[in-house]
């Protein structure tokens, strides 16, 4: 190993990267765009408000009071529907997924129950709904819980079962805090894997390796400088992602020693896979295709973008054999949950995987263009 040679190689790599705008884009801008887009989409998830259409056929103070109660719940943005029109037709025509109808006689039934204590007095509030809408069941659940509370209060007794929530997290976290470690893991994978594949395949095809094999640079120098280069890129893109996440979304993430540990392990693991692919695929194009074939399913199935619990059981099991899963979950364990034991366990798994593929990658990377 010769540090001067490694340094010279690193300088060439970094200059090439800096001068190649598309590589810059995919390594740094692309993850940031993902963060911005998804972060904005899910930013207001916690205080999301639903549209609710209400047709008040009773037009009394009591009915108005009920509507006000729904409004005060805070989950709904209420629009009144003209009592004169057919609510079903109206919902159909205007593509409205839920119209709540307060029936005529609401106030009189209400008074009958409260003043005469008539247990038989009741009202039926009708939902006119489009069951194909994704949010309608959530809306009805919220409405039902509001009505249940009103019913319970009207009995005049305090509720028997109360609930209390204790989060297992030291503090409440949002989707963006879940998302950022996933994007860091994803960009570690794409930069290292496609970086290693593109570079090695291209160099081989362009005959640079043939020239290099007549210089004193050794395979070790070459691989070491590539690893260092990928590591530097990964650090730059991670810092960029974190800066944007802090600046735009004010995320609260724990930055500790596990972050560099996972960056190093992920770089070794994915550069290793890249080196193996380069050897398997002779042409630069097929190596890139093979890299995409590995990267895209991994991106979606290993929980970079959404929690694994959303996927069917067999896919969840499948995710557990994907290396990216352990980088995702390891980073989340350290950055979100501050769970050092899980971080340690996942770093051990990805570390063992990295050791195996990297050694295989080194063995399969032939320096001479032996034809």
């Amino acid at each position, binding site marked *: 190993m*010769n540090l*001067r*040679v490694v*340094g*010279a*190689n690193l*300088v*060439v790599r970094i*200059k*090439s990267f800096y*001068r*190649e705008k598309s590589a810059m884009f995919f390594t740094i801008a692309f993850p940031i765009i993902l963060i911005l887009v998804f972060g904005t989409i899910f930013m207001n998830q916690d205080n999301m408000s639903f549209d609710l259409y209400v047709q008040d056929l009773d037009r009394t103070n009591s009915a108005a009071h009920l509507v006000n109660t729904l409004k005060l719940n805070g989950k709904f943005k209420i629009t009144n529907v003209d009592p004169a029109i057919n609510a079903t037709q109206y919902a159909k025509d205007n593509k409205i997924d839920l119209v709540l109808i307060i029936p005529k006689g609401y106030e009189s039934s209400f008074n009958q129950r409260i003043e005469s204590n008539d247990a038989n007095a009741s009202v039926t509030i009708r939902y006119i709904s489009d069951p194909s809408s994704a949010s309608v069941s959530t809306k009805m659940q919220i409405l039902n819980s509001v009505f249940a509370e009103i019913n319970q209060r009207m009995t005049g007794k305090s509720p028997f079962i109360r609930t209390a929530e204790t989060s297992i997290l030291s503090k409440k976290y949002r989707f963006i805090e879940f998302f950022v470690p996933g994007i860091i893991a994803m960009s570690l994978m794409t930069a290292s894997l496609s970086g290693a594949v593109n570079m090695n395949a291209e160099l081989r095809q*362009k*005959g*640079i390796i*043939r*020239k*290099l*094999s*007549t*210089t*004193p*640079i050794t395979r070790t120098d070459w691989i070491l400088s590539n690893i260092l280069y990928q590591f530097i890129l990964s650090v730059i893109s991670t810092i960029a992602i974190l800066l944007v996440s802090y600046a735009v979304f004010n995320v609260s993430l724990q930055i500790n020693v596990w972050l560099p540990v996972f960056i190093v392990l992920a770089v070794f693991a994915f550069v290793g896979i890249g080196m193996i692919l380069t050897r398997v695929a002779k042409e630069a194009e097929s190596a890139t295709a093979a890299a995409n074939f590995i990267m895209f399913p991994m991106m979606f199935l290993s929980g970079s973008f959404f929690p694994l619990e959303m996927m069917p059981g067999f896919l969840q099991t499948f995710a557990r054999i994907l290396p990216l899963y352990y980088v995702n979950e390891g980073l989340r364990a350290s950055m979100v949950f501050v769970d050092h034991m899980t971080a340690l366990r996942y770093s051990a798994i990805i570390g063992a995987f990295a050791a195996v593929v990297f050694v295989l990658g080194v063995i399969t990377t032939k320096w*001479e*263009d*032996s*034809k």
Partner: protein
Amino acid sequence: MTKEAEHAIEVENLTKRYGDLLAVNDISFNVRKGEVFALLGPNGAGKTTTVEIIDTIRTPTSGKVTLLGMDVTKKKHDIVPRIGVLPQGFSSFDRITVRETLQYYSRLFCSMNTDIDGLIELANLKDKSKEQFKNLSGGLKQRLGIAIALVNDPEVVFLDEPTTGLDPRARREVWEVLLGLKKKGKTVFLTTHYMEEAELLADTVAIISKGKIIAIGSPDHLIESNANYLGLTLKSVDEKVFEIVRKMGFEPVHDNYRSIKVRVEHTDDVRKILNAIKDAGAPFLGMDLRKPNLEEVFLKLTGEGLHEGPAGGRGTE
């Protein structure tokens, strides 16, 4: 070991097989220190395989190659710092400039005092030194490749087809650089399929065909011993002239249109033929007398006739 002092390269019974294909078939030759040695042959003759075995890119199937007194299969690490290579189809990092590329390679050799400016000047790349590799033309790339092959001030320089794929002007510009290299007294091992290139640059030419070396020597020696004649071309002659020349005991052949070609031994023969034509009163529009070159040698040695050869149809000069 006086041989070692005299020879930069010694090749003994070198053979290289790729599966069933015998690319290099038991060849032997030596390259003297300080000479320009050209391996001349058509595509697929085994030139690149041979040079890549000598400059340590490939390994031989059998045979022994000694470079600067060292076995190339055993002493790669000691050999590499002492040689410079322009591989076939040379390429470099797209977005790195001429100067940066030279600096990069000089760092790979850990050469502290490489004269980068001197190399840029030698390769005539002064006004391109800040240009990125991808923006260079084919000829400029090759000239940069030659300069790169010199960053470690090597004792032996290998140039594998340095002018293939270049237009005639770019080729001439590369030759300028190579002539400058020759003046420096480096041992140069060159492969080419351009006869003029070998003739212009080489002290020794080895002609290789189908994996075998079929002739070796200085260009003059090869021409003298294999093509000891002059080529006379008579342009736009009467049909009578053909008969006159034939009757004089020569073997004229028809060229295109109404020209004929005759091989003669001496300039005296030319005078005799011209006189005979003049006496017969037959008109002709012009003549051309040419010494044979390596092309004729190659065509003769590979058994291909002068006119039906793949390089036929050359214009007269």
